[in-house]
């Protein structure tokens, strides 16, 4: 449905994908019905990706929730929408321009009074509010109109009514009985509402054939990944958009015998987490940018003392308090370099919601293996958007947490110069001198040392862990052309948009490929082999080009490889990339006028 549906009165038209934008106020529950649509996709073997904006004011305000449903692979939440549902005049005015030519606009005919008939868009007025009030009864005011709209969309798209009803029942069933009853009344009214001479669509059957298809947001999936990685302890302080990871861990960990502590601030949070790590556990702390800044001193300690640790940064718009409910990827350099001193640490970034699970597992593995902090850079888009994917196979992806308290011999050294650091947590018997863990430079026994040569050797040791890792990391595969005009490189939540952009550019006749980095620091060794066959390289990221004209990952790649063909496609407007922004940026670079 990238072009508008033909409106023949009676035919049922098969769809491969559609972008539906719900535009209203955050209080109207549009997130809730968007979420139900998304979940439904997972249940019906469809692909889905959602996108939402959150008002930055406390009492709420204009907000959208966009759902991209598809029977094939859905790579991005959609630039334009095929269907707009406008709850208010302001919603209509702000979003009608984002409807594709010939698309459909459903609007609340009691609210939206001025229409712009343009570009063949079909306007269908439905009295969401009054019809809901009528169906549910006066006391509900306009509560429930979101469910009414859900019912209407169900009918239009011939979605599986029973499955929707099931989801509603689970969602509202726990509350007062009347709540579910009212919801079903609104739903049925919407389902039955005659929307006039509009085609009814149905989605082609999804391509996914597995039974274990789940849909969820990135923060929830990340929390599940941490549990599977063996995390049972940690501490954090609330901040948007990180909070829901800590809330999930706080709620879930007692089931697994663990404890997640809400600390008094981020300084305490990272310290408690290092405490749990020192005590022998795999532990996690996290925050968004402002909180990460507060953790920089303790993270420097963790590098020096070689503490295995997972640290999550769900990035948002910066600097400072910035744009707290918007997306940005501007904390990459801080993740690598934010602490004082030379602080080797590993930085990873998940590429989509599903990957939030696997990146957490990998973070746990690397933290333990290299005995050092691992920072995961997620972002606001991943935190809240919903995607459908195959349920992880826990028979393969599950690490049973263990605490190694085996006796150590008299020759035990926590920081050997010729082997990986292995701490002996408290409770471990040592046959001789007990070890100390310290932020001072130290010798192999963890004893403070002001010796010049020792400082050089230990610096080497800490750095060489990352060199070792970089050599072991596989190069990312190139999507699209394996050589040609332009290689796009990206990281984090831009993954899908970058792939879709490659599809478009190739369709236009360009020879373009794309590589996505999940390992941000260190990068896999020999990265330059990726672009050997390309004329140009553009690094696509949501941060600023800075004084020198290159985004943050681009700066790192240029510094490492000193190859002038590496350029940047960047922006910082608080929004995810639109496909056309990447496409236009790529064309510019290929033309040579960037």
């Amino acid at each position, binding site marked *: 449905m990238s072009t508008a549906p033909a409106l023949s009165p009676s035919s049922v038209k098969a769809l491969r994908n559609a972008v539906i934008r719900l535009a209203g106020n955050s209080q109207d529950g549009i997130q809730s019905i968007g979420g139900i649509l998304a979940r439904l996709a997972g249940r019906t073997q469809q692909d889905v990706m959602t996108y939402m904006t959150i008002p930055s004011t406390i009492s709420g305000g204009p907000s959208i929730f966009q759902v991209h449903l598809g029977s094939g692979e859905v790579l991005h939440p959609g630039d334009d929408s095929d269907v707009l549902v406008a709850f208010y005049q302001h919603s209509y005015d702000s979003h009608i321009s984002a409807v594709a030519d010939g698309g459909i606009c459903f609007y609340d005919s009691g609210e939206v009074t001025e229409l712009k008939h343009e570009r063949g868009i079909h306007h269908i007025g439905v009295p969401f509010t009054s019809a809901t009030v009528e169906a549910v009864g006066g006391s509900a005011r306009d509560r429930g109109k979101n469910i009414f709209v859900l019912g209407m969309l169900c009918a239009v798209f011939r979605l599986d009514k029973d499955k929707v009803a099931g989801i509603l029942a689970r969602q509202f069933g726990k509350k007062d009985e009347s709540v579910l009853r009212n919801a079903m009344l609104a739903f049925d009214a919407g389902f039955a509402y005659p929307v006039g001479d509009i085609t009814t669509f149905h989605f082609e059957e999804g391509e996914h054939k597995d039974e274990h298809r789940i849909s969820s947001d990135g923060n929830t999936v990340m929390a599940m990944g941490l549990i599977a990685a063996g995390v049972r302890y940690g501490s954090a302080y609330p901040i948007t958009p990180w909070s829901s990871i800590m809330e999930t861990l706080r709620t879930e960990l007692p089931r697994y015998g663990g404890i997640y502590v809400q*600390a008094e601030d981020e300084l*305490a949070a990272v310290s408690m987490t290092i405490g749990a790590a020192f005590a022998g556990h795999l532990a996690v702390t996290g925050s968004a940018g402002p909180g990460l800044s507060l953790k920089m001193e303790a993270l420097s300690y963790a590098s020096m003392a070689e503490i295995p640790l997972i640290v999550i940064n769900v990035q948002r718009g910066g600097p400072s308090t910035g744009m707290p409910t918007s997306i940005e990827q501007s904390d990459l350099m801080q993740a690598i370099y934010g602490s004082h001193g030379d602080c080797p640490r590993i930085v990873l970034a998940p590429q989509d919601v599903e990957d939030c699970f696997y990146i957490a597992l990998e973070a746990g593995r690397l933290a333990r293996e290299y005995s050092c902090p691992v920072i995961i850079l997620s972002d606001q888009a991943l935190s809240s958007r919903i995607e459908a994917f195959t349920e992880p196979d826990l028979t393969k992806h*599950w690490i049973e947490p*263990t605490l190694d308290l085996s006796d150590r011999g008299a020759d035990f050294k926590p920081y050997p110069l010729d082997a990986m650091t292995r701490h002996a947590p408290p*409770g471990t018997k040592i046959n001789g001198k007990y070890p100390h863990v310290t932020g001072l430079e130290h010798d192999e026994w963890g004893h*403070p040392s002001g010796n010049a040569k020792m400082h050089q050797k230990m610096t080497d040791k800490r750095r060489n862990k990352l060199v070792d890792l970089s050599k072991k990391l596989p190069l990312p595969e190139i999507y699209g052309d394996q050589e040609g005009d332009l290689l796009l490189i990206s990281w984090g939540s831009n993954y899908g948009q970058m792939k879709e952009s490659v599809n478009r550019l190739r369709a236009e006749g360009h020879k373009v490929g794309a590589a996505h980095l999940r390992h941000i620091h260190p990068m896999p060794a020999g990265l330059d082999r990726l672009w050997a066959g390309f004329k140009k390289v553009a690094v696509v990221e949501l941060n600023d080009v800075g004084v020198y004209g290159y985004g943050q990952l681009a700066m790192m790649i240029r510094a490492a490889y000193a190859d002038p063909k590496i350029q940047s496609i960047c922006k910082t407007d608080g929004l995810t990339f639109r496909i056309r922004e990447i496409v236009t940026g790529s064309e510019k670079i290929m033309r040579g006028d960037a």
Partner: protein
Amino acid sequence: MSSPTLDTSSATPATALVTPPAEEKLTKKILTADHPTWCPGCGDFAVLAAFYKVLEKLQYPHEKIVCVAGIGCSSRFPYFMNTHGIHFIHGRALPLATGVSLSRPDVHVFVFGGDGDGFSIGGNHLNHAARKNIKLTYVIMDNYVYGLTKKQTSPTSPIGFKSKTDPTGSIDRPINPMKQLLASGATFIARTHAAQVKHMVDTFERAIKHDGFSVVECLSECVMFYEGSFDDSTPRKGGTYEIIDEAQHDVKDDVAAFQLADLPSPGKFGVFYEVQRPTKNALEQKWIDETQAKLGDTPQRELLRKRFETMR
């Protein structure tokens, strides 16, 4: 560089208590590590000696003793103990120790530090670790000055004290450690003196035996940068050392303790306050137990799998 993977051969589940080891008599000799790098005459030597004594008395399994510290002269303490130890960053010893205490019910957590580390940069953590009643013992070696950084005003320096940051004498009202601790919600609060070995040993012992957040302010002279600071509480220098008479003072009464804390220098010494309140350690464990009781003995992996089911 080789990258051995974690040795899990003898690993035990993360939350299980390890069975107590065979007896090994803990002596001062065994407990002694490096010779302290403190200045000759520093009060901290006596605190260390007192702690050896208490441990000799308590005979905890050697490997179950953990010493935690931030940064400062006093915070070098863990290096001088041949036990598991961690020397963390300035002001954050308490949250680190909280992480150890909550995640390792089998070990004994001791925290040592100075007045700057505890009341200045670390002041907030003190309040919150105290109100949460984290199971650990915290000894503040209060010398009324920043020792390690060579004589700046500390939050306990008296008005008029000449330091590098107050060349004409300190003008900021110092904190009242006992009042601060009483307001914090700590469940065991005492005051002792490095020159009073017996009182110090007894006080430490009682603090350690307390089930909850126990904190001891221990006056400990910095002979380098604040000589004579505690002469008024040192009998052999003409001072008076008055111990609280618990027949007169009800240690459960925080208002009485607050009043006691109003006495001018040198004030009184001993236990100001002591009550029983469930520790956060116990409350979290209770939540875990109740939660797990409902789950029967479903394996953990299966719990997560079931969670995924709800996302279908």
